[in-house]
């Protein structure tokens, strides 16, 4: 069993992804 959980530091996270942006589009994940 090989875990996929590899928590990154906040700095790494912001550098590699837009995960902190939290900007909703019109769909906001609720419909297509």
């Amino acid at each position, binding site marked *: 069993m090989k875990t*996929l*959980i*590899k*928590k990154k530091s906040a700095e790494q996270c912001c550098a590699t992804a837009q*995960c902190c942006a939290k*900007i909703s589009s019109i*769909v*906001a994940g*609720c*419909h297509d």
Partner: protein
Amino acid sequence: MPGARHGGRYGYYDRNVNSQMKTFSKHNIFGRIRDSENYFILNPLSGNADILTPEKAREIREKTYTDVEEYSAKGYLVDETEEDRLYKLKYLDFLDERESNEVQIFFVPWYACNFSCSYCYQEGYAKENAPLTEEVINAFFNYITREFSDKKKYITIFGGEPLLAGAGARASIERIITKAAERGIPVAVVTNGYYLADYLDILAKGSIREVQVTLDGVRGVHDARRPLKGGGVTFDRIVEGIDGALVRGFPVNLRMVIDRDNIDDLPELAEFAIEKGWTKNPLFKTQIGRNYELHRCQADSARLFERAGLYEKLYEIIRQHPRVLEFHRPAYSVSRFLSDNGELPVPLYDSCPGCKSEWAFDCTGKIYPCTATVGKDGEEVGTFYPEETKREDIIEEWESRDVTTIPECAGCSLQLACGGGCGSVARNRTGRLHAPDCRPVQPLLEMGISLYFNKGNE
């Protein structure tokens, strides 16, 4: 010692371990990674996700676990009572988190539009042609300032098409943006992009959170699907608008609405965006919208994808054209999040923001739960003009919709990755708001983990 083990449906009991009943968690999602011999197990409640070899996967299928301690530590094998307690605790966390979340307030200044898109879901709406008055705009701002006084919020200007030509339209949009700026409220705009370049000076008067623009492909494909009313191409002007917005520092969210007619154009649009330098710009992001029947049937429904079918096709395209991922990385349920963040998102008890973190106001003074319902007769939950009214009973029905109130979600192992889907779609399909709009979580994870974790070989 198989003889010492007793299982229920997913039950597992090993007298030699700790004399406690451990069952296979009802929130486990287990499947085979697409195009791989490897498997995955993922639990949105415990927040764990693992790749499994075929041998380990066989243990799960046969309930003959050899790594009981690890499975227990990761929440794959659980004491049901303890898991139920965790489910309730995390539900309370979810409600607290949502309470503190930013509210997205849509405002529709008019339903008029200069485009004639082949799939417009607002086509059958009764249009209000009266011009937007200053009185309505003032009433809107007075209402949201008071009703959402303790909330972080932003306004999304929607339509119809908000950025139309003409002095009247420009003055109205400028008034909305200026009033929002005076109150420190950021603004997003959802536009077809045709007049975007002409509106950049007006947008600069506010704090622009995002401009959403749609291109359905490169020039020929886009122009055939999204022409001007009465005919006329639109692609080049939209591209000019996107370029201008990026130069001015406005975040752009490019949406491509997809069905079978244009999906094969995705690699070409991706190359176009890459060549333009858009994909390297941190202000630029993308989304894919599925063309689907929201409130009414479309004339050519054969071209529409079901959700899983769309993602199957995207998977195939990405395998053939990996550079598409530079343009857009589909979510594939929680797969992309897991890849980007190295952890799972918090359990999703609800994926419908209507009357919770989303509201929609329109030029006629009506209030709706969300963008899917705004402008549709009979969907209003109140008014802000000329008088203020609230349908408390209907609002309560929307507010209380989540996986704990949708009966069909109760026994579903996918509920905390799905969230119950869109309330409007669910009600259109079943007549009940508290019904599920199921997401094909299982196949999405099978494909997504394959794409983002190299078939489980990472």
